[in-house]
């Protein structure tokens, strides 16, 4: 990010840009930036690649992405292939882009193994893999538009969802 210092300390200013503040007033730069924002395609919104967002996080709760674990802070984005994990005192709730709600009790692990919500391209997918613990799932738009695109998996079974509210508990072996 280019930062122009317009204070009185001329000596600290890099030689090659000493003339810039006079030719390009900061106000004009700001206006240019705003104009660029205004013409930027709206689909570039920050969260557009994410599958969803953490809405509640209590106790020990984390998101594992590419082998790296990070605390699942409220507001954190969730992506396809992420693993949601809670510890002995943890509870975690995530809402996905298609309105699906996922919430976890303590000592739980759920992977968002597949997620796609692009009806215009015909791409709809939702696979939740419960490895351990307790999950409450409330279906969203994908289940309405294409029920066969939704699958909940446990170590022993595959659960097809035709709408609404499923509770899944997996006892760790």
């Amino acid at each position, binding site marked *: 990010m280019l930062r122009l210092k317009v204070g009185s300390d001329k000596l600290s200013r890099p030689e090659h840009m000493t003339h810039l503040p006079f030719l390009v007033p900061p106000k004009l730069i700001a206006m240019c930036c705003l104009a660029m924002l205004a013409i930027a395609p709206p*689909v570039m919104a920050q969260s557009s690649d994410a599958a*969803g967002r953490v809405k509640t996080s209590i106790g020990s709760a984390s998101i594992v992405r590419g082998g790296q674990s990070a605390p699942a802070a409220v507001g954190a984005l969730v992506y396809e292939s992420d693993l949601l994990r809670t510890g002995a005192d943890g509870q975690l709730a995530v809402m996905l882009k298609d309105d699906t709600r996922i919430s976890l009790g303590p000592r739980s692990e759920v992977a968002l193994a597949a997620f796609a919500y692009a009806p215009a391209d015909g791409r709809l997918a939702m696979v939740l893999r*419960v490895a351990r613990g307790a999950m409450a799932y409330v279906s969203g738009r994908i289940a309405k*538009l294409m029920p066969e695109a939704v699958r909940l998996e446990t170590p*022993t079974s*595959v659960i097809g969802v035709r709408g609404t509210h*499923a509770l899944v508990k997996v006892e760790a072996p």
Partner: protein
Amino acid sequence: MTRAIAMCGLLAASGLAGCAPTPAPQPAAPPQRDLVVLAAQPESGEIGRLVVTTSSGTVELARAGESTTVTAGGPPGAVVVLDDAVIRRHFGAALAVQPPAARHFNLYFEVGGNGLTTESRVLVAEVVVTVQGRVAPDVSVTGHTDTTGSAESNVTLGLRRAGLIRDLLVQAGLNPSVIDVVSHGESDLLFATPDNTAEARNRRVEVTVR
């Protein structure tokens, strides 16, 4: 005995009163592996259907509270109706943090113009209030069209309309970084029609607050 249990499951599934008071074994702490329960939708009370499949069998859950327990290597167990206390014991912590349902607002443009109808202008203010009442909110602005014209041109048209609504929401005070703008074109009709059918109710921008 096995047959009696199966009958129990059938009776429960068909909604008839419980089994006769034969000493049906109710294991207090079954050696369960996975437990799957169908519950009513928290807000609407709507009840869907779950189909639980293993390599050796399939069980369908179709009523609120119906459950099946699956032990590794076996078929899903017979359907058992769980009462609320048992459901809370297993899932209370997960249910306690369930987020509130998403809210949807359909906004319509005046015929032949870029301005919103009076009703829709009122809804814009309601969207803003709803967003302000949420923790870590997300807003999706989704353009929809009717089936007039090609699918591709309708995606573009939907995106343009959605962009107009996004600008209105930002003017009304929403943080642009929580707004996602997309177009579903003619792929997600509110009122089903054949292709190339003009239908004003399908030409809308849907704002979802999560």
